[in-house]
């Protein structure tokens, strides 16, 4: 029973922490660009503002347009809830493994693209087609990276992978290095961060994610934005907890759970700072160079798989 309680707590924590991570990334980025930047808690204020505003819907919109924000939010949230955040061995991990996680993300993305096309404006359709191009190329790379991890642990469950990593201790695994690279590139593409998409732009030539949200207002927009932030948190947790699982709680004592929370917050803060630094140093690439970028991710995933087979599984 207490395990279920902690799972619920963790799921709520995902939702609560996501705006904080986004606020942190924006803050560090502002500092690196010599700006003062918005306060750390600004994303919460934005959400509150959008929630109390009136929600208007275009008169050409179908009912799908109204339900899409809820589906996208719930799918992303469910996906995030299956990733071990502060404790291993939760009952949610028994329900869903990595493949289900990828599937849930794909479900959310499917409805996001449908909603983008629903109203019939030019930008929505353009954003949806771009999003589909990027995700169609990113998904094989993501699956390759995930299979590399799964082959090492002989299990597709995230908990299994992390437990295997914890018991093995520190090993210089080339396959993990390649899978890490692939996962970082895929995360940048999927979360719409800078080399692929700019999360702060509304310029028609460059926007991908924002173009699909142009027709949304009020609480619908709030849910869509929140879902995007949860997705960023999800990829962040996936990267830090799978590759550096140290500190995560393996038993359900308050001390261990507190340590797990502190560890994951520190790791996410470092990752967010690295993301902000990368976004400051890099420029956004042309859309037609994105396939090359994701090709590199796929190559890294493939090399991870091959180097696991060639170098790590012995006679």
């Amino acid at each position, binding site marked *: 029973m207490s395990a279920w309680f902690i799972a619920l707590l963790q799921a709520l924590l995902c939702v609560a922490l996501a705006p904080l991570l986004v606020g942190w990334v924006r803050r560090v980025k502002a500092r690196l660009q010599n700006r003062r930047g918005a306060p750390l808690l600004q994303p919460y204020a934005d959400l509150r503002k959008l929630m109390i505003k009136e929600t208007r819907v275009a008169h050409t919109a179908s009912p799908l347009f109204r339900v899409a924000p809820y589906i996208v939010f719930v799918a992303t949230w469910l996906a995030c809830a299956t990733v071990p955040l502060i404790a291993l061995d939760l009952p949610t991990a028994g329900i869903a493994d990595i493949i289900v996680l990828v599937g849930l993300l794909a479900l959310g993305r499917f409805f996001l693209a449908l909603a983008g096309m629903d109203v019939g404006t030019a930008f929505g359709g353009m954003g949806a087609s771009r999003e589909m191009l990027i995700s169609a190329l990113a998904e094989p790379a993501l699956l390759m990276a995930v299979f590399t991890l799964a082959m090492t642990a002989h299990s597709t469950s995230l908990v299994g992978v992390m437990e295997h990593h914890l018991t*093995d201790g520190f090993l*210089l695994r*080339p396959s993990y290095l390649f899978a890490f690279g692939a996962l970082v590139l895929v995360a940048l593409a999927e979360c719409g961060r800078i080399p692929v998409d700019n999360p702060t732009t509304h310029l028609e030539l460059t926007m991908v994610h924002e173009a699909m949200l142009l027709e949304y207002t009020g609480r619908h927009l709030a849910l869509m934005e929140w879902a995007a932030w949860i997705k960023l948190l999800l990829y962040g947790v996936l990267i830090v907890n799978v590759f550096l699982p140290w500190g995560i709680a393996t038993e359900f004592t308050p001390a261990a759970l507190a340590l797990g929370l502190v560890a994951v917050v520190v790791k996410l803060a470092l990752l967010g700072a690295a993301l902000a630094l990368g976004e400051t140093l890099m420029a956004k690439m042309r859309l037609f160079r994105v396939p090359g970028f994701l*090709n590199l991710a796929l190559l890294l995933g493939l090399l991870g798989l091959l180097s696991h087979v060639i170098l*790590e599984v012995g006679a």
Partner: protein
Amino acid sequence: MSLAVMPLLQQFVVLMAALALFLSFVLLAQTRLVAAIHVFAWQGALVAAVTFTVALTGHAGHLYFSALLTLTLKALLIPWMLHRLVRRLGLERHTEHLRHPALVVMAGVALVIFSYWLVLPMVEQGLAFTRNIIAVSLALVLIGLLMMVFRHQAVAQVLGFMSMENGLFLAAVSATSGMPLVVELGVAFDLLVAMVLFGVFFFQIRESIDSLDVDRLNRLKEVE
């Protein structure tokens, strides 16, 4: 031999070998000549690091020397000479686009799988951890060959040739704790002489066909 039972230094060797393989792929698909030369220099440095680590674990004294030789020759001297040649030929900003970059990279991946399959019979011989690296070094050689086939630019083809040599050296170091010193010195001087000759050839080719695109040699005709 699985990774978990290897000592840390051998894990390091395996990691370096994997990174050298990755750099081979980067070299294969890199469009800018100067960047490709830098990648080649890093690959040489990785091979030198592998040699040094094998020398540490195997207590083979002469390997320290060959690590030093590899570092100075392949990570510093040859890249520097190539760099100077590229500058004198005015090719710093030259980019060369492969016609099907994704297909070329996939061909490289196929070569990696092929070389693993080729080395598999050695599993039965039980040759400890080295046979893993032999698959990687064979892949390095084959990808270097692939690069010489697919690139049109003479400088890029020379880079492919040199990275093939990196693969051979990696195989020699990991399989049989290095070649005898005399052989190694001979190979090193061969490489240097080859490099100088390539430099002369570059100028000759450019003088005769006004470009370093080797494919244009196919169109040479006798003047009527």
